[in-house]
């Protein structure tokens, strides 16, 4: 039974974090843009979703709002890079730093209408708050399987559904004209210019999608966490990138699988490793350390830090 509950933990976290990894698939793998904004937008998504739910509005709107907020700030990172020619790493640092304040203030304003942020800054999900977990749509799924390791089946199904839907939408997008242009932008900007398109524009679009996905991930994560707190975003860069790189490099040779599927599997494997470490009795204070070590291992696995297929040929 212990094993089942462990599976429950890493599967649900894996599905939730796979959205960040999918976001990084766009920004890092396709566009080759090391995007540090994610730490801020992950939390922004959580705050947007938390405020919508705690104010009694439909949680699906919360997810949509989370995506929009994430996409806006992702686009801001892109604009800083493209229009003001600021280096990618700095753009991410600037926007995510900005977001620390924005997230704090909007939490406080959304909760109690206080612009000075003197009171509470976390959003608790009390019994009366309707989140995705407690919407009517999913009520037919048993919340927990008591005889089966007490698995949180309903959450698991919800997270799985989001991961799969986002994956399918992304796969579809990458086959459209706009998606193809995005892939060309990451590979050869000169080619995009010769197509009479602005490569800067595709870059901004890509970063918007990437951070929108990270924000949805943040929103869903609050379901696991049971509240929104201001430190939720910390470590998300490593989680996202490690999941992406583990997935892509581990299944490099697997031809029949789409990259997006590999990324989701990568996220699950990464979480499984972390859960395993915990089950082996490593105190949770060591978590971030283990994360970073696993990431390093993933980088080594990915073939001497050169995992981007295009960089060899482009």
């Amino acid at each position, binding site marked *: 039974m212990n094993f089942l509950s462990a599976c429950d933990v890493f599967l649900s976290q894996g599905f939730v974090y796979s959205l960040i990894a999918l976001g990084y698939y766009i920004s890092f793998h396709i566009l080759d843009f090391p995007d540090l904004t994610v730490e801020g937008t992950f939390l922004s998504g959580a705050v947007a979703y938390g405020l919508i739910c705690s104010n009694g509005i439909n949680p699906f709107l919360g997810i949509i709002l989370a995506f929009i907020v994430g996409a806006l700030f992702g686009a801001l990172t892109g604009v800083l890079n493209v229009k003001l020619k600021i280096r990618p790493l700095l753009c991410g640092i600037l926007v995510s730093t900005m977001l620390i304040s924005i997230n704090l203030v909007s939490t406080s304003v959304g909760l109690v209408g206080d612009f000075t942020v003197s009171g509470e800054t976390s959003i608790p999900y009390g019994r009366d708050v309707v989140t995705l977990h407690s919407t009517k749509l999913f009520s037919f799924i048993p919340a927990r399987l008591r005889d089966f390791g007490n698995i949180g089946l309903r959450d698991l199904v919800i997270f799985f559904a989001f991961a799969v839907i986002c994956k399918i939408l992304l796969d579809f*997008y990458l*086959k*459209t*004209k*706009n*998606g*193809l*242009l995005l*892939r*060309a932008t*990451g*590979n*050869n900007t*000169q*080619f*995009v*210019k*010769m*197509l*009479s*398109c*602005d*490569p800067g524009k595709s870059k901004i679009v890509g970063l918007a999608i990437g951070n929108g996905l990270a924000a949805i991930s943040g929103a869903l994560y609050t379901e696991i966490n049971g509240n929104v707190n201001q430190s939720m975003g910390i470590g998300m860069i490593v989680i996202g990138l490690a999941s992406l790189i583990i997935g892509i490099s581990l299944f490099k040779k697997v031809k029949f699988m789409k990259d997006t599927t590999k990324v989701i599997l990568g996220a699950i494997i990464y979480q499984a490793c972390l859960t395993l470490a915990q089950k082996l009795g490593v105190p949770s204070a060591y978590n971030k350390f283990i994360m970073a070590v696993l990431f390093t291992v993933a980088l080594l696995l990915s073939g001497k830090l050169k995992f981007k*297929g*295009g960089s*060899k*040929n*482009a």
Partner: protein
Amino acid sequence: MLELKNVYTSFNKGTVDEMNLFKDFNLKINKGEFVSVIGSNGSGKTTLLNLICGTYDLDDGKILFEGKDITKVKEYKRAKHIGRVFQDPKKGTCSNLTILENFALADNKQKRYSLTKAISKKRIDYYKQIISQCNMGLEDRMNVKVGALSGGQRQALALVIAGMTDIDLLILDEHTAALDPNSSETIMLLTDKVVKEKNLTALMVTHNLRHACAYGNRLLMMSGGEIIMDKKEDEKKNTSINDILTVFNEISIEVGN
């Protein structure tokens, strides 16, 4: 159709290394001309192309395209009517996309890159037909990633793609320089075919004097940012490689190359 008027350009402006390349440079290219540009390194051939395409800004002067002033128009916007093939075969195609996807992207030039499916099944035969004129068997390898092709094949694809849509001007930037002699001949023949079929105006920079002589209907020689030889039509036909070589050697001695 293309006119450069009183153009000034310089490099490293405001530093000790400041170098004024073009001083009051003028050039007019008429519709239907296939211009070969030759000259030693540093004579300003590639800079000329970069100015026309908008990769570099000019310090002063004007560039007119079809009568419109495009001096301030951004590179990607100018590309709407200009096709360009680079010396580096990797620049003209996208290595992580398949041949088919490269075609689909190029086919959509001048239109909106919307959220509709990129590859239209109806067009595949058309793409195959265009690429088959390269005689490289690429029409049977449409789903191969372009990164897996050889330099010559990539350049052929780049050329075909650049000339596919309705452009007015084709810019060829030493596009055979990185290829072996055989591929280089193939690409030149293909270039000639594309230019003639589409009735394009073309501007070709080359270091191959034989190509410069054999192809095109106008010949320019540049040195130190100036045009020192300009032969058109019959005058060009009567110019032999040796004539060019004589002038070429003279200027080379002057610049110390």
